[in-house]
């Protein structure tokens, strides 16, 4: 009762245009360490982060039980500010000998953006934190390429739970841009990768 009352009080003060979003946030998300990641658009570099995307250390990481989830993901990218018309698309394919061992080895990436746009950085974010970088065109995220997160499987689990985003920064015609998009399993993706 008290919990619902607090949520109602919070929602009553939220701008009407954002109330539905905040209601969803309060309804589905557990409280995690607040994260504010700030970038200089000009410098195109991450400058600060309040906390790790996931806690690290033996006590903070879930026991790795292998990965069971979709193999193919995609993200449609757009400029949320509307300041530029730059768009992009990323396709991810989870690779590995999963059927035999339940272990994944890498994520193949394929990033394309608006013609003539130059990509300066591209990464997967969890809770606003850069956890894995990848290049324009074709690339690979290996097990040793994840950062600020427990491990490679934690990234895969976050992707399966649709808690990840892609952030791409670059320039087009001398102007900096940032395009983002949620990572989602490709429609109809039901392939299972091993023990859960």
């Amino acid at each position: 009762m008290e919990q619902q009352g607090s949520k109602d009080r919070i929602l009553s003060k939220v701008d009407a245009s954002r109330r539905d979003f905040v209601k969803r946030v309060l309804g589905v998300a557990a409280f995690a360490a607040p994260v504010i990641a700030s970038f200089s658009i000009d410098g195109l570099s991450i400058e600060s982060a309040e906390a790790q995307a996931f806690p690290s250390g033996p006590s903070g990481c879930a026991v790795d039980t292998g990965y069971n989830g979709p193999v193919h993901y995609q993200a449609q990218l757009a400029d949320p500010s509307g300041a530029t018309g730059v768009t992009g698309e990323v396709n991810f394919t989870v690779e590995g000998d999963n059927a035999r061992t339940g272990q994944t080895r890498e994520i193949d990436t394929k990033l394309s953006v608006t013609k003539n746009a130059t990509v300066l950085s591209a990464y997967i974010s969890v809770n606003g934190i850069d956890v894995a970088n990848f290049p324009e065109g074709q690339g690979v995220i290996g097990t040793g390429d994840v950062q600020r997160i427990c491990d490679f499987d934690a990234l895969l689990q976050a992707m399966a739970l649709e808690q990840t985003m892609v952030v791409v920064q670059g320039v087009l015609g001398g102007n900096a841009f940032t395009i983002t998009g949620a990572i989602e399993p490709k429609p109809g993706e039901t392939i299972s990768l091993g023990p859960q």
Partner: protein
Amino acid sequence: MTTVTCAVDRPKSLEGLDISESEGGYIIYQPDLDRVHFLNHSAVVILELCNRENSIPEITGLVQQAYGLTEPPEQMVAETVAKLREQGIVEPAD
């Protein structure tokens, strides 16, 4: 006898912030400052409570109750508000 009155700190987010909702939280653009900020869900709730009506202890209490936390997240709320101020998303303290 001298009476000292301390103003209560009631943070308030800046007017006219360019806020976009995303799967992971808010993306806030400050093109005039060449800045972009990503806030996760917990930071979103704290930002929304920065409305000049709540003191930091009150924000802490609301967050604790809303999420059913056993302990008040005093330090996290205080640090988040400080960070929001540092980044120019919340007005400076009076």
